[in-house]
């Protein structure tokens, strides 16, 4: 019998109190509220750890950096205990033929039950020779491991969209995971890197509920990617009131005004930075006085300078798809479409404790 997450934590000398704290934090991150805590506790205590094969293609390893620095109270211990990382060439002890043998063993042992986590993407040009781990093109390795996987997680913007190596002219034909694995659900967790709590949240959800979280049309978990940075930005009242930073270090910058005019991509970027934040929720780019660079969006490298003012929202392809209301025409159909847009907007707010409508508190 495979060890549970809780077993592993106890072996490492972590107290039950810390474990419960972690469960509460995870429930909050997932937007599930306190009623979900017991279920998460139960799952982590009883279910075998999730076997994960973590592959690295064309990438910079920032996703791994983010993941192992997650702000869980027990930091990396919790995260690395939650999953049974059976193969990860960055942090595993094995090397060479031994490592490749471990990979085959894992596939055999957990056939149909393991998660394939891809960090980075495969280059397809010239038969994939621009990324050759273990003597074979990376794309072959991805397809081989994906064949018997339960689900695939595409970590980061590389695996989700292509990112910098796919920037024009994309000399190696770097290709996101969902375009090479088409017969399995692919959970896309974009960001460069993704937020650590979002990464652990996705894993915790799969482990707790035994299924993948609800995804949007781009394959992103709705619980983390349904709102723009701009929607929950603490500087938003300044945007609404037309109070902008005109240049870095001007008086308005000192007053904490909106960074739109100095290039902030918050209005077109779907991610949880403004609510979950970074580094144990200390801050996020806008909190430090720099605009969002839109790193969780498709092709963000090809959208001009990070400091260019966002002028053409529809140029952001993702934006055009994610939010399309459709043409609103006069009459009943138009009204229905408009009303639908509004109700979708409300849903995106992720209204909590809907059974707890007791009026103002």
């Amino acid at each position: 019998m495979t060890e549970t997450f809780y077993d592993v934590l106890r072996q490492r000398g972590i107290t039950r109190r810390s474990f419960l704290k972690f469960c509460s934090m995870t429930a909050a991150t997932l937007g599930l509220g306190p009623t979900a805590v017991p279920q998460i506790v139960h799952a982590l205590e009883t279910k075998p750890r999730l076997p994960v094969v973590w592959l690295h293609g064309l990438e910079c390893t920032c996703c791994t950096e983010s993941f192992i620095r997650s702000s869980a109270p027990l930091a990396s211990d919790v995260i690395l205990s939650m999953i049974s990382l059976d193969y990860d060439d960055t942090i595993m002890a094995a090397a060479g033929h031994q490592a490749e043998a471990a990979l085959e063993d894992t596939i055999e042992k957990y056939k149909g039950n393991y998660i394939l986590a891809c960090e980075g993407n495969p280059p397809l040009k010239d038969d994939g020779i621009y990324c050759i781990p273990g003597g074979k093109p990376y794309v072959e390795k991805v397809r081989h491991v994906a064949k018997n996987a339960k689900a695939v997680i595409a970590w980061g913007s590389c695996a989700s969209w292509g990112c910098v190596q796919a920037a024009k002219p994309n000399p190696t034909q770097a290709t996101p995971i969902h375009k090479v694995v088409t017969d399995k659900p692919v959970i896309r967790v974009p960001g460069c890197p993704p937020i650590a709590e979002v990464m652990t949240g996705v894993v915790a959800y799969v482990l707790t509920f035994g299924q993948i979280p609800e995804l949007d049309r781009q394959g992103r978990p709705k619980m983390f990617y349904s709102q723009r940075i701009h929607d929950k930005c603490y500087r938003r009242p300044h945007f609404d009131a037309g109070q902008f930073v005109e240049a870095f270090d001007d008086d308005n910058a000192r007053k904490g005004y909106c960074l739109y005019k100095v290039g902030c991509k918050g209005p077109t970027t779907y991610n949880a930075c403004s609510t979950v934040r970074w580094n144990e929720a200390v801050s996020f780019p806008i909190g430090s006085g720099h605009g969002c660079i839109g790193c969780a969006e498709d092709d963000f490298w090809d959208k001009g300078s990070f400091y260019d003012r966002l002028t053409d929202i529809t140029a952001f392809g993702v934006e055009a798809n994610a939010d399309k209301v459709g043409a609103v025409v006069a009459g009943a159909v138009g009204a229905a479409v408009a009303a639908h847009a509004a109700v979708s907007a409300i849903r995106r707010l992720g209204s909590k404790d809907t059974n707890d409508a007791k009026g103002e508190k």
Partner: protein
Amino acid sequence: MSTTTDAAPPGHALNPAPLLEEVFRRIEQERMQGIPILNRALEVEAVGFREWQGKWVGVLLTPWFMNFMVLPMPGTAWPRVQRGDTHPWHLPLGRMDCMAGHEEEFGDYHMCSLMSPVLQFEDHEAARIAARAALDAVMSPPRGDESPKGPVRKLAEGARKPMSKRDFLAGKLFRE
């Protein structure tokens, strides 16, 4: 996030809709010129402002955003929240975390962004319909299809059932 209900702000004795419209029209004229993400087909309109539990609530529609707004009435408790922090309002639909803002001309307000930018609307009428539908949705109890789905729904249903203290302490919630 510090929320204390100390001395109430002056508040608005009359429906603040005309004031909001006046102020945001001026903001549009004076501060939003040259901003390319405005929807020029839309105009500033305060939609459906009404009294709710001693507060004014409604949707503020402008060419650059559509927000749900909460404003104080005189003499009622008003949560003091630092600007940019949020306060959980328990509305008929459920909890909505609204962000505190302050504008010199009408004082404190809380807002929850529904949409921004608002480029998807072809004309003002469509945006107004959307604003009304959004406000109706917020001010009515949740419909079945707006509740959480899948395993989360099951959890929520479990939590709604009455439970004795003994069952709770015995961990009934996760046995089901």
